[in-house]
C-alpha cells in the first residue's frame, strides 16, 4: 500500500493504516530530528505530536505536496519552534557526541592507515556548515529528492542543488588531501 492509499484509509478512520504510517516514518523522522540537533526523547514527543495532529485533523486535512514532505515539514516546524523557545535544545544529543569522539581522536592519516574511509567520510559530513549538512544528509541518507527537500525546508530547489554541489566539492577536496 502506498502513502496515498494509506492516507485515504486514515481519513476513513482506519487506525491500522495510521499505525502502519507511523511505523514507516518513525525511524526516518527520528533520524531527521537527530540531524536537527534534537535528542531522541524530544524527537519522540515531536513525532508523536505530528501524528496526533494528523489523526485529530484527518477529516479536514489537505496535503498539497506528498505525505512524506508534509510529515518532514511538520517535524521541522515543531523543531524550529522548540529551538526558538528553548536554547538548551541546541545541544547535540549524546549518541551523536560519542560518534564524534571516536572520529575526533583519529588524524586523517591515521584513518587512511586504518583504511576506514567510511568513518572518514562521516567525519567530513560532520564538518559541513549546518544548513549544508542538513540538506546533504536529507539527500544522501534519506534519499529525498531536491524538490522534496525544497518543500520541507521552504527554500528553492536551486538552493538545494547548490548546497549539494558545494558539499560534494568539499568532500572531494578533503579526499584529495588523504589520497
Amino acid at each position: 500500500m502506498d502513502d496515498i492509499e494509506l492516507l485515504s484509509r486514515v481519513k476513513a478512520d482506519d487506525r491500522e493504516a495510521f499505525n502502519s504510517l507511523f511505523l514507516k516514518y518513525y525511524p526516518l523522522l527520528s533520524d531527521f530530528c537527530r540531524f536537527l540537533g534534537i535528542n531522541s526523547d524530544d524527537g519522540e514527543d515531536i513525532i508523536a505530536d505530528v501524528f496526533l495532529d494528523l489523526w485529530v485533523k484527518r477529516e479536514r486535512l489537505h496535503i498539497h505536496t506528498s505525505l512524506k514532505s508534509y510529515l518532514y515539514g511538520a517535524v521541522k516546524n515543531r523543531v524550529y519552534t522548540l529551538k526558538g523557545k528553548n536554547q538548551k535544545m541546541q545541544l547535540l544529543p549524546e549518541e551523536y557526541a560519542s560518534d564524534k569522539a571516536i572520529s575526533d581522536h583519529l588524524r586523517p592519516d591515521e584513518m587512511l592507515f586504518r583504511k576506514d574511509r567510511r568513518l572518514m567520510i562521516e567525519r567530513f559530513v560532520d564538518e559541513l556548515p549546518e544548513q549544508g549538512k542538513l540538506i546533504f544528509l536529507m539527500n544522501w541518507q534519506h534519499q529525498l529528492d531536491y524538490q522534496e527537500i525544497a518543500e520541507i525546508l521552504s527554500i528553492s530547489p536551486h538552493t538545494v542543488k547548490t548546497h549539494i554541489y558545494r558539499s560534494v566539492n568539499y568532500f572531494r577536496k578533503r579526499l584529495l588531501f588523504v589520497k
Partner: protein
Amino acid sequence: MAYMDEHHYLLIIGYLEGRITEEETQYLLQKVQTDKEFSDAFEDIAEIWSAKKAVPNNSSKANDALARLNKKIDDLEAGAHVRKNGAAKTGQQSSIILKLRPILAIAASALILAGAFWLYKARLSNKPADTLAMAEKHTASGEKKKIDLPDGTSVTLNASSSLRIANSFGDDKREVYLDGEAFFDVKRDPQKPFIVHTGKIATQVLGTHFNVSAYQNDSNITVSLVQGKVQVDMNNDPSKRIILDPGKQMIYSKNNHQAHVADFITDDITGWKENKLVFNYDSWPDAAKKLSRWYGIPVLLKDSTLLRCKLKGTFDNIPLAKVMEQIRMVADVSWQMQGTKVIISGKCN
C-alpha cells in the same frame, strides 16, 4: 582536482541513486570512459555514496513510541466521547495534548500490528522478450572453454557452466546469461553496455576484467573485479546498486538476499583459469561441489560436523587422489573411493 560544474555532479549522483534516464546513463557511461576529470569525480562521488549508512531502524523503539501515542489518542477520544454525552470534565482534551511524555510505557507486545512492513515485490523477471533465440555455450565438469564473442569480448567458462548469449546481443546492449562461473575480459564499447545476468543479480560493466561465480546450487553469487569498474544491481532495485572498485568483490547470499563487499586476492578468484584449484575459505559443501565440478565425479560428505569448517588452499593441476591426500593431512578428515564416488568423513577442528 579540477572543479566540475553542478550539472555533472548532480548527474553522477542521479546515476548512483538510479534517478536518471537511460539516455543520461549512456551519456554518463561514455563520459566516464573518455573524460579523465569526469571519471575522477565519478570515483570520488561513488566512494562518498557507498559510505552511506542505512537509516537506523530500531523497531522496538518505534513500537514503544506508537504504543504511547495510541494510548494518548484513546484517552483523547474517550474524553471527547464523554464530553459529547454531557458529562465531560473541562480541559481534559487540551491537557492530554500538552502532556507530551506519558509516564507509563505500554509493552510493545500488546500491540498487534498487521501490515506494518512493506515488502517491495521484486520484479521477478528482467529478461528481454527475445530470450527464445539465443546462442548457448556449455562446459562439462572438469572442462574449461574460452569463448570469443562477436564484439571482441573474451569469456573463459569454468567447469559445469553455461553461458547464453541474447539474440539481441550488440544491438544497443550486450547481454549474456550465466549459470556457473566465468571470467570476462570485456571489449570497451561505451555505446553498448555489457550486462551479465545471474538470477536476481545483474552486473553491468563500466570497465574491463572481472569474474562472476553463480552456480545454481551454490549458496552465494560472487562478482569480483580485477580491473576497471562494474555496477551490480539486485532485483532491479537501484537503491541497492553497488559500484565495485578493483580488488573488491560483492558476495550476495541467496539465503538471506543480502550482499556485502569484501577484498579479495586475484589469484584466489582467477586461479582456475590457470588450472589452479583454489579453495578460498569455502565451506565443506561448497568445496565438495567445487571438487566434483573440477574432477567430474560426485563428492559426498558423510559427517555433518564437517559443516563447521572452512577450507583454504591452492592446488596446481594435480590428480584428485593427491589433492585428497593433502587435504586429509591438513584438515583431519578421511576419504575413500566408493565406485566412482568420493566419500569424505571426519570431524574437522
